């Protein structure tokens, strides 16, 4: 089965082709995508692009983890929202 390498917060991860960034995040030791204004961890909730909970930075651009498929050498950063 073909796999591609991505990085999540600087950590290299091999994932199956065709999985979403949300799925890749769930394979790490840290399930959250971002911290809320009050510092609460947030994770994918609706998984269909509506709830906006799974905002992460992908190659420097803010994206929804559930709506983005992993691509080779993708750099994903859990969003601290500045």
């Amino acid at each position, binding site marked *: 089965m073909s796999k591609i390498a991505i990085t999540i917060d600087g950590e290299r991860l091999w994932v199956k082709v065709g999985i979403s960034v949300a799925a890749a995040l769930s394979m790490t030791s840290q399930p959250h995508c971002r911290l809320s*204004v009050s510092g609460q961890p947030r994770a994918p909730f609706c998984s269909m692009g509506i709830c906006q909970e799974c905002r992460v930075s992908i190659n420097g651009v803010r994206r929804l983890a559930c709506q983005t498929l992993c691509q080779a050498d993708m750099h994903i950063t859990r969003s601290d*929202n*500045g």
Partner: protein
Amino acid sequence: MKRADVIVVGAGIIGSACAWQLARRGLRVALVDDGLPGATAAGMGHLVCMADNPAELALCAYSLRLWRELVAQMPEHCAWRSCGTLWLAEHEDELALAEQKQQRLAAAEAESRLVSAGELRRCEPLLRHGLAGGLHVPGDGIVYAPNVARWLIEQGGEAIVRYRGSAVALEPQAVRLADGTRLTADAVLLACGLAANALLAEPLLRAKKGQLAITDRYPPQVRHQLVELGYGASAHASNGTSVAFNLQARPTGQLLLGSSRQFDAPDDVLDMSLLATMLQRATQFVPSLAQMNIIRCWTGQRAASADGLPLLGPHPVHDGLWLALGHEGLGVTTALGSAALIADRLLRQRPAIDDTPYRPVRLLTVEEVSA
């Protein structure tokens, strides 16, 4: 509770401010609200000194003085920020509007100063090159109005008793709720925006629909509330659909984007083509918005009176019935001033500013009502 002195219908920013002000002055208030979101839940929470007509300016300037006395006491969740407003001139010919506004504000003792094109860029680097200049109004700010409304009610303590329910009928010195409860008091104050049309059984207020969009959280890059100088013309148009650029940096790092006006669109559905026009207008001032993500959009209805000024004071026909209605898009700004004027009149005290322009009698003549 003992019998209330005043029943306030509506716990948005106007009703809450009125209930708080009346409670402070020793009255017992029954505050009725149906829990449904109204204009307070939908708006931007901009405390802005509008100056497009003298009566509007007088009420804004007075109310903003009262806000400035209060903001230091407000808890963090009220999200007060003293950001000021930057009014933007897109073209040279709009600089005259900035100068006129500056003079009008000065006459009301509201501070403002003209800003050059270069200074605009220096203080707000996201603005595009080539804007003509602007006007900085440092006394303006922002709040999160739904939390301010709740906080004001809490400040009333035991003097304010809340009733969750829908007011369905007015009787002399009484209000009947949908569940059959009948509340009585010496005075009844309607502060329920558009819902007053049904209670008064007359189309006193017209709905002006607006829509807003808010971005994801980004590192703070905008310091002032940014508004185009043409906003006033859009805000006061009595017909047609219009948009005007209005951008607010929320304390969360989100950017709140307005604004639009639509008449006779009573639903809460987003108008996508109008939203696109709003966003295009916004990117004409802040091009980098095009690279940001919008995470929510919503609509709301402003309650507009026939002459654009609020109705504050006694109903000219019905004894004991008072109105605090028709604040349109300025309810947050003018809430404290409106509440003070209402309390002054109710308690037969001399108001701090002339309240003649806001008295309901100007729009509700005795002849019309009885006809």
